[in-house]
């Protein structure tokens, strides 16, 4: 009961702050709301006993990536950005597409929980805690994707450095 109400609160916060993110004109405010969203999602992770995911969510997204977002946004002149309209004229189409998607999802949910048979979640051994289980899955079952992902980060880094680097002389 407690868990359920906490979940509801977190979910409402996550969704409403998500809406705030895209409706704020001031990008810094958007980032702040995004942080709130990430936090509440982290809370939901915690509610599911996924402590590791929670911690990573906070450390990486809130503590790292969002800081860099802010860093970049602060370098931009916020006043001019705030005056620009946040949406293009196609917002109606976008809204329509979102509605269709929402209807579909709702239909899916309406069809019942049974249709969401998410396979059987692999239970970690009793003496193993959540973090170790995540590590086991990542480095045993999905070692190859992890390695590939490292190259993904590498190429992103190379690209970013290349684009941002000052010209010689």
């Amino acid at each position, binding site marked *: 009961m407690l868990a359920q109400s906490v979940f509801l609160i977190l979910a409402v916060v996550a969704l409403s702050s998500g809406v705030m993110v895209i409706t704020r004109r001031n990008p810094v405010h958007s980032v702040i709301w995004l942080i709130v969203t990430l936090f509440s999602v982290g809370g939901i992770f915690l509610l599911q006993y996924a402590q590791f995911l929670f911690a990573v969510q906070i450390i990486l997204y809130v503590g790292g990536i969002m800081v860099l977002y802010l860093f970049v946004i602060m370098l931009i002149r916020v006043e001019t950005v705030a005056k620009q309209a946040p949406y293009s004229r196609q917002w109606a189409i976008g809204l329509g597409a979102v509605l269709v*998607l929402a209807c*579909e999802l709702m*239909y*899916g949910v309406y*069809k019942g929980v*049974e*249709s*969401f*048979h*998410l*396979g*059987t979640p*692999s239970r970690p051994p009793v003496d193993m805690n959540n973090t170790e289980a995540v590590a086991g*899955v990542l480095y*045993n*079952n*999905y*070692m*190859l*994707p992890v390695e*590939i*992902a490292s*190259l*993904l980060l*590498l*190429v*992103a880094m*190379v*690209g*970013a450095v*290349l*684009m941002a*680097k000052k*010209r010689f002389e």
Partner: protein
Amino acid sequence: MTVRNLTALAPLIIVSATALAVMMAAALRRNHAAAALMTLGGIAAAFASLRAAAVLRPLAIGSSEAGQLLVIDGYGLFFMGLILLGSAAVVVLAHGYLERQAEHREEFYILLLVAVLGSMTLAASSHFVSFFLGLEILSVALYAMNAYLRARAISLEAGIKYLVLAAASATFLLFGMALLYAEFGTMSFDYLAGQMTAGIYPNRAMVTGGIALMVTGFGFKLALAPFHLWTPDIYEGAPAPVTAFVATVSKGAMFALLLRYFYSTGAYRLHSVFVVLAIIAAASMLAGNLGALLQNNLKRILAYSSIAHMGYVLVAFLAAGDLGPEAVTFYLIAYFITTLAAFGVVTALSPADRDAGRLGDFEGLIWKRPALGGVLTLALFSLAGIPATAGFFAKFYVVAAGADSGIWRLIILLVLTSVVGLFYYLRVLVAVFSRPLESRELAPQVPFASAFVLAGLSALLVWVGVFPGTILRAVKAAVGSLRY
């Protein structure tokens, strides 16, 4: 990781290692030629290792819990080989092109190699995780490659456009995957296949929605109508060798995956999916061929023509049956050769400050630079589907496959739009064969390596067009391993 696995993965490992090696070498001492040579060497080594990997085929790599992540089978290896060969051609062309640029040039090869890695991963992927990672590696590398010439606003624009659209399409793909995962509880193609062919999907709406979202994502990546709007701008803005890469390798890899995904899961048998894909194919053929009529820039014409060609390939894809996959693969090979040749000419003709593209740049090419003009003419013939070129036979094969499975409406549309296509190819040819204006400057000397590649591509064009047998047998063997 057993030795067996490592051998199977050798092509991927070699390409990644080469990327790292080029990066380290560039950090120590910048040398353009050395970087290009290292890249070529790496690609050659990877190509050679394909044989070693082929001995073990087919091998699924993954684990019991995750399902098979990569499948190293004849089909995957065949496409890897195609990707590697195409990339090698791009490397040679890019070396001559970048030699004229003042900016850092070595990083290009790192990005290219990683993009190749992504493409190869796609070709071997049989799991949503490896699929998505491969796709992302490819896209991220391409963002930077498109915007590589930072001093050109048009190149930056291409980079940004590609970034936004690729990111958007990636979200579509992800969402589609999520829906399918929610429905089936698995991300592995073979599990999916098992459940889909058995018809165990209680919630058809979710499956259809998921596949629809994925198709949208695919559509963006392959520049199929109506998701094609980015193509002309990016083809025009990106540096010519990058355009060649985007047009060939990245699309080839994507189609390889598409083929594997749809055939192995049997998703294309869903009626709604079939209808949607058919509409997309028709729209692509129409949009591509009609759009090209209005263009005055060869790069943009080629962009629209690529949209049309992707439509043709989709027709072959929909033909399914026995001939379908073979037609797709063969068409892609012909398309690789032809497009590389066409962009090769553009690359060779581009001066340092801009890319050749306006029709005026090609006026009288055949008189001034007979060799280049000849190659371009051949490529255009092939694109138009004139007999005795690779393009003709490929198109013929597609029509045959379509006829075989009776998708007549699409076939008729294909033939009609091809006729329209003839018109704009001829416009380019008219420019190439017209009398030159004296004032036009000639582009710099074509380096030997580029000339060699261009000559090789033209020879291939004709050879595949006249004697398709060898290639056809290889294609048959490769595609045969797709149906396990």
